């Protein structure tokens, strides 16, 4: 990175530093939680044995990834954490689409769930217009309900009102 002058700043600008760091965090979490399960002995392993060892291994590899990223000859690839044009809104829409599916599926049935799921996801596209989004959602709903409800017999009511709760 061009701006880096101090070693610390250089460290923080490397993607592999974060990659390794995340693995260390994962590994620590896994290992610490793993120690609350019985480890047992090598001969009679308890439930905690394998996960704890995996966690420790992951910590070591995380450190190695971060260390390898520090090497000056690191590959000249995109080191930035975010893509050039972060798509926060689109990411949010994509992640919310299953949430909409869960909510509408639980309380209103398959057809509303499908519609909302497609609708929310489609809103993420920059060029999407309301009309095209609605048309797409309707088409997928009709097709999807026909396929999954009638043909594949997924046991989910098409329409319901506050079904299970």
């Amino acid at each position: 990175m061009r701006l880096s002058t101090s070693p610390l700043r250089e460290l923080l600008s490397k993607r592999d530093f974060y990659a390794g760091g995340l693995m260390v965090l994962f590994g620590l979490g896994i290992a610490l939680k793993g120690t609350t399960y019985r480890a047992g002995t090598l001969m009679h392993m308890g439930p905690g044995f394998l996960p704890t060892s995996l966690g420790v291994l992951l910590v070591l590899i995380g450190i190695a990834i971060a260390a390898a990223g520090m090497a000056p000859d690191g590959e000249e690839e995109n080191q930035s954490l975010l893509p050039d044009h972060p798509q926060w809104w689109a990411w949010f829409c994509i992640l919310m689409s299953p949430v909409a599916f869960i909510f509408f599926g639980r309380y209103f049935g398959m057809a509303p769930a499908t519609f909302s799921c497609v609708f929310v996801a489609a809103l993420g596209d920059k060029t999407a217009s309301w009309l095209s989004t609605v048309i797409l959602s309707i088409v997928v709903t009709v097709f999807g309900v026909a396929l999954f409800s009638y043909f594949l017999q997924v046991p989910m009511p098409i329409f319901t009102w506050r079904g299970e709760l």
Partner: protein
Amino acid sequence: MISTALTDLWYGFGVAFEPHNLVFCFIGVLVGNMVGVLPGMGPLATISILLPLTFGMKPVAAILMLGGVMYGAQYGGAICSILLNLPCHPPHAVTCLDGFPMTKQGRGGIALGLTVFASFVGASWGITEMIFLSPLLVKAALQFGPAEVCTLMLLGLLAGSTLARGSPLKGVAMTILGLFLGSVGTDLETGSERYTFGMTELDDGIELIALALGLFGIAEFMSSVNQVAPINTKYTNVGLRDMRPSKADFKRAFFPMWRGTIVGSLCSLIPGTGPTIASFVAYATEKKVSRHPEKFGTGLIEGVVCPEAATHSSVQGDFIPTMSLGIPGDAVMALLLGALMIQGIVPGPQLISQHADIFWGLVASFWIGNIMLVLLNVPLIGIWVKMLAIPYKYLYPSAMFFVCIGVYAANNDFFQVGEVVVIGLFGYILLRLGFHPAPILLGFVLGPRFEENFRRAMLISRGDLLVFVERPISAVFVALCVILIGSQIYFRLRGSKAPIQPSLQAHGEGRPAVAEMHTPAE
């Protein structure tokens, strides 16, 4: 020996020709091809999205259909790479090098036509290998104790994570993460719950479908949304008539096709070297033996058929360890193995004898399916070409629906739809940090069996870790693991990456942004 194999094969054709199996194989090929053509849908995404459709089926029909989906998607991906220069699946990155220039010259149809043929040749060779090698491998594998199974899995996992795309260290990290995710839920041996955090929904572990769709569905959509350049359909006017190669083209493609097939099948014999490496090696070999290597990259038919034949022959070859040992070589195989496990079939050396109908039916259906692929693609090429033009903004919301309903249909449980959101978010973060999530699936599928065999081996040896090097077969596997790690360190210290990969970068400059995104150049 040969005669028993042929009798079994005959039996397999009987299974595959049963009308409903035939129909499902056809549907699999058709739908797989259709979805695989769509830009941005690689075989992994295609199989995981279509996996839920097979839940209600009998095991044989389900696996036959998924097999069809797999090679249908693979061929569909080749169409997308040749006509649009968009490799949705890493093996096709090489196909683009000469495939897209051919398209620009108006010879895309010929490239497609010969690709169909090359993939058929490659696949047929791989299937033949499968018929004769699998029983041999099973015979050997039945002698394995838990120690051997354990070290063999270790070798498979290591090879799968270090030889695949990207940094080996990151690959290993992903495998470990996958092994861990496989241990979430009720411990089979002691019955205690692990990492469920009091959520009873997690008692049965993380759902394979949720993991696959989160990593290869949602995470991929997040990285592609609003980033996909509008598709350039300028060159995609390919019709039926354009596909017929001239005699000269055919002659030129004939030997490269066979060389690719051989390279692919050799690569499939080494664990962990999936179709990606096979296609790279095949392209490099072809360039070496060619009389005019400088013309590669300008639209040579050799540069298209050779890697495609290699890909298909190595994919079929990868089925050998998957079906006969229960050890998948890459994420696609892991997913298919997971599909078998969902159907209640335990993978391993006993699979071929216990479920002869599945194994031999699958082998026979490969041939039938590949012939269907040829027959389908000739008349339907016009439709596939039209499907290429479907914009991404319609594609991913529809795919999101398939993700949601697919995960839901696995157990009729909304909790798992929630799982897929969390996994998708994590998958995207991992992608951004330069990890390739495919080995997670490998570790996840093998994890529980690895733990079980490790425990058993330790119980038998009374807690002596030396058992892994004292038993000769197991010692060989351990030695191979050590060689693998050693060679990785050696290459690293010498500063050169895996020797085959740089050849792509030299040509890669012309690829559009999307292509880079799907196969981040490492």
